[in-house]
């Protein structure tokens, strides 16, 4: 699956355009890192891609591998603050990912199909969260919360996860832990679009990279083909 942003323009209420004709594509099975300084429009870009904001001009379209447009793409979104529900257990947070395919009335009462619960437990086990299944999400560490957010996207069956400032708040060791996990999931076919300002992470963890400056993509390409110096200069 590929999510394409075609000539996307966006502004909040003020007349300053935050995105000015962005063209970019995020693919499943790939890690794309979007670099940019604060205020370059990274968060807005992800929100538009996630469908939370409507572009003023241009369009966002998801297509499958043969180029056919998808009406209901499986996309996950992890906001900068991670977006897990602090007052719910880790398991409930993850099961929310299965909500749209579970019987609604039961799910609203907190009852999910047995196979979904088992699947959620497997996913949590896979992400090393097997011990905290029943803990409240707010009691977790930053790295654990990130993994809960990823688990939820996996549960949801997201082919592409849009993660805003994904690792910015983590310490260097946890950052590497989480990104190793991302790489593992990428090999299973999940795509990630991660915004960051940490150039240093690109060579090891990104497949593609794009630099956003003042609402425009000023540099884009395969991570291996762009020298870090060029990235820094573009920023």
């Amino acid at each position, binding site marked *: 699956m590929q999510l394409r942003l075609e000539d996307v323009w966006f502004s909040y209420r003020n007349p300053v355009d935050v995105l000015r004709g962005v063209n970019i594509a995020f693919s499943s099975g790939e890690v794309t890192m979007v670099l940019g300084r604060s205020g370059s429009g990274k968060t807005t870009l992800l929100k538009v891609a996630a469908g939370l904001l409507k572009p003023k001009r241009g369009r966002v379209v998801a297509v499958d591998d043969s180029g056919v447009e998808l009406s209901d793409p499986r996309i996950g979104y992890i906001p900068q603050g991670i*977006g897990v*529900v602090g007052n719910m257990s880790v398991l409930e947070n993850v099961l929310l990912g299965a909500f*749209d395919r579970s019987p609604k009335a039961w799910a609203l009462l907190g009852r999910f199909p047995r196979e979904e619960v088992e699947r959620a437990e497997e996913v949590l086990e896979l992400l090393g969260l097997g011990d905290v299944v029943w803990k409240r999400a707010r009691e977790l560490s930053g790295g654990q919360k990130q993994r809960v957010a990823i688990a939820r996207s996996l549960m949801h069956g*997201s082919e592409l996860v849009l993660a805003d400032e994904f690792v910015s708040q983590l310490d260097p060791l946890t950052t590497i832990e989480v990104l190793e996990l991302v790489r593992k999931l990428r090999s299973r076919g999940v795509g990630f679009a991660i915004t960051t300002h940490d150039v240093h992470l690109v060579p090891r963890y990104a497949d593609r990279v794009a630099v956003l400056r003042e609402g425009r993509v000023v540099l884009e390409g395969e991570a291996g083909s762009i020298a870090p110096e060029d990235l820094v200069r573009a920023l």
Partner: protein
Amino acid sequence: MRARTLPRPPQRPPFGLLTQLLLALITLALLFRFGAFDPSVISRLGNLPAFVAEMLPPDPRPMPTLVLSMLETVMIAFAGTTIAVAFSVPLALLSTRSLFGPQVTVPLRFLLSAIRTVPAIIWALIFVVTVGFGPLAGVLGTAMYSTGYLSKLLYEAFDAVDREVLEAARVMRVGKLAEMRYVVIPEAANYILSQSLFMFEYNVRASAILGALCGVVGLKPSYPAVSRDGVFPLAPSLDTVGFHALSVWDTAAALSKTTSSPELAQRSDPFRLPSSVGSAVRLGYLRSWVEGNADPEVERAAESFVRELEAKGFEVVEAELPDHELFRRYWYFIRRAEASEVHEHWVLERPEDYGPDVRRMLEEGLRIRAVDYVRAMRMREVLRDAVESVLRELDALVLPASPITAPEAGLAKVKVGGREVDVYSALLSFTMPFNLTGHPAIVLPYTLSSEGLPISMQLVGRYMRDHELLAVALAVERALDLKRRFKELRVRTSVPSS
């Protein structure tokens, strides 16, 4: 994220020195306006320690009663708050801006604020029309007001739920219900709990007032027993300060704390009132006054009251007094003349400020001759003696409190015993005689009419022997189980909507 950094406005403390001074000045000016710096107020500050000393040590005797009343208060508040929480959560969700657009939230928020502007006590009164007097009206009134209030507290909390968390769920297209159930409610759960508890606490305080809606026992003490200081006079030689309360016991407590007679204060102390006087009590039923002069339903109620008393071992005999029209005549002269004396200045200077009825009454009063007034005052003594001599053989007189049940508002005339009389004199005709003679009287709720309106019975006791009357009333109330009986009637029966 901002496109570019804007220069920040210069930091200013939220309350500058000037603002603080201004606030202090306004407050001082208001205190001055309310008379806080009046020398007399300051000189009376010394009363404070005395007042506090009065309260210490607390009197343990009323505790059982207080605990029971408090329990009812807490139950009203609990039921009302629980209902309110059940309604507030969905209403608040519908008013949350991050879930619904302005076409839903704006009218709903307006409705909630409209509910809030009506105080709980008024809501309770509105519910009295549908469910009748009693704790249920209090519960519903509390629930209504609390719904308006709590919904606001909750939607503020829901609005404050981290937008990002909601967005993460929204991207997965879980739908609004799941957004509420799995994001907004859990994220705001602590607020829902704390605000609901706050609301409960608030309601416990508020329903202390609502419970009093059930008050129906009325005591008119002997004329000089309670000081009239601070009461604006209508007719000074008739004006009596009395009490409405839930039970005889409560009126006794009120009297013992307010009477200016040290003897009465001691003797009407409800803890000193004899708990059983039953078999020795002799009551005089004023049949000649009631028969043919009251609504048949009231008359039947009075007869059955008497029969019940007899069945409980009270001795009830027939008592005779001069015709109550005689009482009315002298009462009329005194009331009119004294009221017109009090109002003379205003009724001459600003007659248009009075309602037409009152104005006519006061103007008539100005024309009453001194001879008539003096004679009325003398005859009043004669009538007082007549009542006293009847009561020498009796512990109390028995008669209905009023020959009619509560009339429709605005009605001017009613039919009593086949005659048309004006509502005002009909309502007063059984209480006015003892107002004239100054005898203590107590009114007890007895039953309800076929229309659901209360019918009360009156007991009249010896002059300045209020404590004896209270003891008899207490015995009657207990023997006939009036407190419980009337409470049940009030809850079951609704006030007709006409």
